[in-house]
């Protein structure tokens, strides 16, 4: 019985080898041969492997590797394709989003030191922002109040809230529904510019806007 199996195995390997050399290795054949190799290997292990079989085994191994490479290449190509598609989709989305954000053109407004009153230069900005808010009427508006680094954290949290509230009131006066506007103070905890100079402080004393 065992001998019979070995004979079939050897025959199949011979056929397989010929097929390889003839240069038309089909996947089906390879799979079939693999089964044969398995059987042959089992047989060899049980009988003690003859030298001739080892040579044939190497050939089969090479064939298997070739097939594996092919499969791997195909898989990789598919993966790359998918990644390309995803990247393209992401880029398109980011572009669209960036355009949308650019379209919104929401600008910060700035404040004087230790003040929460709306400066003349902030009025035009708030009017422009109010128009954007009106166009995007379904979105909620978050007004963030910020301060420069000077002074107490607690007082600055209060001052930042005051700034956000003043901006909110200004927007309400411009016709924005108060229930759409939320305020949050970050005090001096989220500066735009970390330097300790007037230029940085002026940039940090601000109200910032978010739509959500």
């Amino acid at each position, binding site marked *: 019985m065992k001998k019979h199996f070995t004979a079939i195995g050897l025959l199949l390997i011979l056929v397989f080898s010929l097929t390889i050399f003839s240069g038309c290795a089909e996947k089906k054949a390879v799979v079939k041969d693999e089964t044969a190799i398995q059987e042959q290997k089992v047989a060899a292990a049980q009988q003690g492997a003859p030298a001739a079989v080892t040579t044939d085994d190497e050939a089969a191994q090479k064939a298997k590797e070739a097939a594996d490479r092919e499969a791997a290449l195909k898989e990789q190509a598919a993966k790359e394709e998918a990644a390309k598609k995803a990247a393209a989709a992401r880029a398109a989305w980011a572009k669209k989003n960036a355009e949308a954000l650019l379209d919104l053109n929401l600008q910060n407004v700035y404040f004087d030191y*230790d003040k929460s009153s709306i400066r003349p230069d902030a009025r035009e900005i708030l009017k422009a922002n109010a128009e954007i808010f009106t166009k995007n009427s379904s979105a909620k508006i978050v007004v963030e109040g910020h301060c420069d680094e000077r*002074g*107490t*954290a*607690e*007082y600055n*949290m*209060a*001052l930042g*809230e*005051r700034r956000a*509230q003043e901006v909110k009131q200004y927007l309400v006066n411009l016709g924005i529904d108060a229930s759409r506007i*939320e*305020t*949050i*103070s*970050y*005090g001096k*905890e989220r500066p735009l510019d970390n330097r300790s100079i007037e230029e940085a402080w002026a940039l940090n004393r601000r109200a910032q806007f978010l739509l959500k």
Partner: protein
Amino acid sequence: MDKKYRLATGLLLIPLWIFSTAGFAAAKVYIDIDAPGFQQFPIAICDFQSPKAGAGALPEDPAESVRRYLDLTGIFRILDKKSFLEGVEPGSPEVIRFSDWSVIGADFLLRGHLKPAGAGWSAESRLYDVTRGEVIFEKKYPLTAGSAQAPGLSIASDILLALTGDEGDFRTQIAFVIKKKSGSDIFTMNYDASDLKNMTNDHSIVAAPRWSPDSRYFAFTSYKNGRPMVFLRHLKTGKEKVIASFPGLNLCGSFSPDGKKILLTLSKDGNEEIYALEIETMHLKRLTNSYSIDVSPAWSPDGRKIAFVSNRSGSPQIFVMDADGENVKRITFEGSYNTSPSWSPRGGRIAYEGLINRKYQIFSVDEEGNNLIQLTFDDADNEYPSWSPSGRQIVFHSRQSGKSRLCIMNANGMNLRVLKESRDFLVMPSWSPRSGER
């Protein structure tokens, strides 16, 4: 001419006369550390004498620990052991030549012996008044085999109690905020800067850490839920709950002296106002009413008054009002930026930070707005003062050339020492009550 001279001399002598009478008046308490002319008290602390060899493993000598703790108080000058004239010979008779101690400048002297007591050891300690040549107290302290830190602390506490009438701040902690680029968290450490621990670990924005007077609760503001809310934590169980999450700002203020209420700054009614929240019932009462910023409320130790910051007169200044919000009175008038009021536990004085010559410095003023004293003068920005439970020390944040420090000074601004230093911000220190009060 001669007459005028004599008058001038007389006038100069008046303050001296006042001081000496004050000294006599305080007969029982040896050190009047609150006198304006207070000098540190020189004390000699001898190594404890131990029995001759053969007595087995000796416990650690508590003397060094006593020196370290007394040094922390800022009111003692610990004399160098090398200056001692009297040799400490083991087993020498209990005769003290006080002249040997007064000549090196010691006003007080601590001597002691380590003696076997039962299964363990005992540190027999005697505190002497060198100038009077008297024993002030004599006491035995049990020693364990390990560290002498605990007995050292007890001895130092008793010395302070005997000399000042107050046990001091040894058994206290300081909560503070470490602010990093990645976010900030609240930490606690012991008064001697040991045992640093995380109180929060959210890398969020945190502010205003506050202890309840009985040390049962700890309150603070955190942005960990996305916006500022006030949290109350039960320290024993670690259970935490949100006690203020109104629209807008929710900032934590101080507890009432009975621990039943907590002051808050809320902007829910349109602008920042001060409210008192009853912790048990969650009943909220509004105390201020002005279209301006009212923030940073601090309750007086007798519960009658509240100090706070308001910009109702144009710039941030310290105000005092009755606990029900009546009788609002401005108490700071110098400078255009006065914030962070902290009320001395002994009453009377309020410490705060003020802007002077483009630097923030610590000041103290009485509750009527009189007797203003500047306490820090260096080239740093000094902020966030918080009093120790004894009312004799103030912890604050000091920042200079990129370095952040937590410092302690005496209530009169003397004897500044650095508790902790970092490149990160170490801000908003808050001194705990004494552990005995927990």
